[in-house]
């Protein structure tokens, strides 16, 4: 696993925010790859948020933005995704790689 591959270090752009939490966002990792982040859960007991981070091509990204391709379709082209747990202030708690097939529909 390449160190910090999942981590967005520049060009952070929030596509959707629900008023409290970022729901969907994109950005660039330190290797210049476009990363998409999407919320997958909120842990009220541990006061944390869970996101998936995964790499997208420009074609996939703009296809998604223009509603020509679904998030699930992009996910299914990735063998694995990063599960990233964050505090509500955005500080990363942990990041782990997970096979995409284990993500429920």
């Amino acid at each position: 696993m390449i160190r910090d591959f999942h981590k967005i270090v520049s060009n952070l752009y929030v596509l959707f925010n629900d008023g409290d939490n970022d729901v969907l966002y994109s950005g660039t990792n330190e290797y210049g790859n476009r990363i998409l982040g999407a919320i997958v859960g909120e842990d009220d007991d541990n006061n944390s948020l869970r996101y998936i981070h995964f790499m997208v091509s420009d074609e996939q990204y703009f296809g998604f933005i223009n509603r020509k391709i679904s998030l699930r379709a992009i996910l299914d082209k990735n063998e694995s995704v990063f599960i990233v747990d964050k505090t509500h202030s955005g500080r990363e708690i942990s990041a782990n790689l997970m096979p995409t097939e284990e993500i429920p529909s």
Partner: protein
Amino acid sequence: MTFENVHNGTNCHCIEDAQSDNSSEFGIKTNKKILREVDFKSKWEKAPDIELSNCEEICSKKGLSLSILAPETFDRVKEIYKQLFPISPTYKPFLCVIKFGNDTGLLKSTPTPSNPFHFDFYKCDTFVHTQVELIKTISLSEDV
């Protein structure tokens, strides 16, 4: 009603122009079908170390994010929530339709480009979530 908790740690006048409203119905996103104390925790309470730069941001995080519901706009508001959350797999929140009891707090209209019905709710110091009436719960993951 007093709002020392809202103003704790800031000089921003967050409740300026905010009003009581015990008759309107509001929608709040929750993670369970029922209302719990955690549903009424503001971002500020959940993230005491969050970095904010101006009063607009601070007051937004001091308040709770809601949407006002009226019979003629109910379906539109529901669609705003439904379009937002099913983007992510596994995340299946709910929209609880609520009404605030007397002396629970103040509400301020804070429309956004994506949600013109958005309000911020500022809890008073004596707020308890049992003062909020749950009218109905809508799953945001159905019919999509």
